[in-house]
């Protein structure tokens, strides 16, 4: 089980065994850019960043409902599934952690209800918190206090991606459904239970945020340990809401479950929290099977999508495209391949590689389970870069649609910026493959490099560490080779 909040209010006392981070280079962005700190400390910060996005989101839903039902002429398809996805996976997550969660409109109404306010803070008592909150404020069930729901939810959604990637109304149902679920859950469960345990987007963002080049952390964890008795970042204060993600910054060692809402920055009595720039892949510890399987699922989906959307096999495209073709048997095979690869195939290979690694290391004291989980971190940079390599051609092929739909977002014949009728043309298609090759090799490099860092946390002897890494390293190399083979042809 991962570093799960629900439990983190209760378990905040448990000190981490190691930092789980590649240390120590980092730049305090609040010091370097004072305006950033000033902005993040504004009481209205969250509202100011979410509200414009909410307006855009509602407009997208409106476009999905009443605009053209032709996918490439409707802004909800082009901007959400092509433009947003590309920005999210290529820039937001690797460079800015869970910055999307800061602006995400899904929890807006639920959080408004819970707080009874959009800007101000209510002091008071709710459970162990120092804020007055509305709703039932129940604790999320312990059995579900992990990211398994997100794992399965994302896998299920992606199985039907051909539907919502092409049909605006289905996108409305999916996005609107998540919006409604987020709101309803907020009535019953405390704070952002939806974001923590249910949101399918949140799950992979958390995992891949470990690679991010920024982090929110205590400036000096010793100050938290020695001087802070109130833990206001976790429990709230008259200056800031209790952490919606149930995180105690004093012991926070990974990006996974920090939504960057900046409430802790406001409520910290010691002004001891900041946002830092750091090297790529700063957090290196995967904790729990749920997180490992998230890595497997993401990698499997990147592979299946690359084969389906970028590969030359028409039959697989036909299987995936259940809405247009209606080949249920083919779709069953397609879905079966996705689920088997993600939940059984890759994990089985990984388990075998981990076991071989243990044999090669010659140290029986480290359980295979630990090797399996910890080395699954290698699939984090690998999977992320595979996703970016997959997403790049999509944006380069469909970029023209972005420019045209911004002028005619509903497909109603508007021409707001004079670009509605620009002809479709791929952007620099001749360079796509070189970008993909670089990205994939970069992913493999970081998989191996950080894998080595992880191995050193398991084995004190360097040669043992390297030997234990060989089988999983080979698996990573084979995966990247397969991607290269597919993309290069």
């Amino acid at each position: 089980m991962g570093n799960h909040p629900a439990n983190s209010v209760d378990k905040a006392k448990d000190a981490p065994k190691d930092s789980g981070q590649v240390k120590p280079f980092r730049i305090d962005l609040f010091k370097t850019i004072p305006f950033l700190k000033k902005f993040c400390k504004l009481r209205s910060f969250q509202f100011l960043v979410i509200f414009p996005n909410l307006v855009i989101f509602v407009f997208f839903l409106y476009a999905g409902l009443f605009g053209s039902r032709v996918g490439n002429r409707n802004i909800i398809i082009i901007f959400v599934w092509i433009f947003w996805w590309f920005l999210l996976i290529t820039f937001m997550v690797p460079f800015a952690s869970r910055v999307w969660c800061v602006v995400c409109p899904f929890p807006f109404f639920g959080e408004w209800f819970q707080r009874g306010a959009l800007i101000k803070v209510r002091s008071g008592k709710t459970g162990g918190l120092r804020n007055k909150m509305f709703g039932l404020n129940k604790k999320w069930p312990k059995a579900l206090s992990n990211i398994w729901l997100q794992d399965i939810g994302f896998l299920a959604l992606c199985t039907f991606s051909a539907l919502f990637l092409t049909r605006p109304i289905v996108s409305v149902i999916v996005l609107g459904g998540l919006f409604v679920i987020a709101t309803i859950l907020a009535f019953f469960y405390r704070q952002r239970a939806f974001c923590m345990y249910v949101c399918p987007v949140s799950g992979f963002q958390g995992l891949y945020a470990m690679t991010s080049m920024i982090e929110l952390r205590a400036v000096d964890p010793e100050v938290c340990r020695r001087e802070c008795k109130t833990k206001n970042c976790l429990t709230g204060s008259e200056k800031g809401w209790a952490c919606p993600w149930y995180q105690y910054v004093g012991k926070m060692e990974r990006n996974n479950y920090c939504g960057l809402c900046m409430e802790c920055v406001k409520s910290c009595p010691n002004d001891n929290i900041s946002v830092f720039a750091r090297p790529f892949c700063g957090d290196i510890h995967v904790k729990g099977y749920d997180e490992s399987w998230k890595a497997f699922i993401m990698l499997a989906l990147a592979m299946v999508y690359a084969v389906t959307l970028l590969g030359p096999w028409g039959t697989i495209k036909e299987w995936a495209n259940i809405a247009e073709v209606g080949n249920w048997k083919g779709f069953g095979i397609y879905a079966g391949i996705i689920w088997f690869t993600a939940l059984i195939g890759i994990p089985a290979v990984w388990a075998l590689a981990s076991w071989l690694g243990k044999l090669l290391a010659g140290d029986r004291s480290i359980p295979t389970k630990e090797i399996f989980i910890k080395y699954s971190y290698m699939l984090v940079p690998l999977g992320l870069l595979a996703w970016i390599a997959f997403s790049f051609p999509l944006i380069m092929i469909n970029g023209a649609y972005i420019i045209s739909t911004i002028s005619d977002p509903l497909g109603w014949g508007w021409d707001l910026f004079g670009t509605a009728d620009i002809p479709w043309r791929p952007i620099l298609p001749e360079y796509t493959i070189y970008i993909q090759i670089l990205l994939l090799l970069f992913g493999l490099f970081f998989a191996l490099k950080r894998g080595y860092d992880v191995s050193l946390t398991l084995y004190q002897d360097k040669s043992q560490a390297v030997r234990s890494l060989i089988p999983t390293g080979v698996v990573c190399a084979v995966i990247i080779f397969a991607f290269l083979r597919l993309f290069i042809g």
Partner: protein
Amino acid sequence: MRFKEILATLSVVVSLVAIPVAVGWYHNSYVLGGHPEGTKVITLSGVAESGVWTLDKVNGTNYWWKDFKPATIYLQEGDKVVLRLQSTDVHHRFYAPQLNIGPIEVEPGYIEEVHFEAQTPGTYRYYCTAICGDCHFYMQGWIVITAKGQSPQEPPPLKCVHEFEQPPEDDMVAWGRYLYQKNGCITCHGDDGKGGIENPNYAKEGDIEDPSYVKGSVPAHNTIAESFFLEEKEDAETFVEWLIEKQGEPNIPPPDVPRFFIVLRKCEDAIAIIREGKNCAKADPNGPEPPLQMPSWEVRLTDYDIDAIIAYIITLYEWEEEEEWEEEE
């Protein structure tokens, strides 16, 4: 803080209301309303599933369940019209040859605008001339232009029927009738193959190399028995029986039908037309295409299907009831 809170709340409420209002206002004022005053702006949406050009609003909320109505467009003589054509699904082609509109390619999701003036009163047919689905041949409608002060005629709309009763496939004639209806043959060749469907811009005989297929209207099918030289009802029945029998046994002997090999040759010609299609010639080589063309059915119909259709249309001939006539005499 209290002021900020109220301002934030108001911003949320106002923007949620403002989005649909702003969209509607912009669309009506600047997109539809951006034409000279008095212009009639008509949006026609092509829907392949229903086989219609419709005036209904089509979007994701209703496309999958609504049975859209085919549009009849009523205009007054002298009306200035902007026709906004859009496809909600697949590629369509709008064509109203008698009004000199089109053919206009209408790509999914794009709007094509046509400007014209309603000049001569009359009832004009428009079509989709790009094969777009099972209901393609039903995708026709009317533009009715009425002289000022007169009431418009109301031409009968043509509607695609999805649910035809499907007979057993081995009942060859019934199967042919089913295919004839389901595939929309009746939209051009008329109910029960009676013909009479006008095909504007027809060529006159002698203008082209092969005038046999050029008619003022689409060829009728209820006279096919006659054009096959099947002179007696019994001959027609025998030939149809032979068609049925040869399905399981291709080498059966010829039936006892006079001039059988001429009949067979005619039948094979008809089969070739169904299989390969045949274009109607243009009256004026520089003029517009005739809207109705015989498409190729090679991909969509099997040999058995085509034989079944032939068998069915042979039975459409209205034979004279000689015995009854003799009795009356």
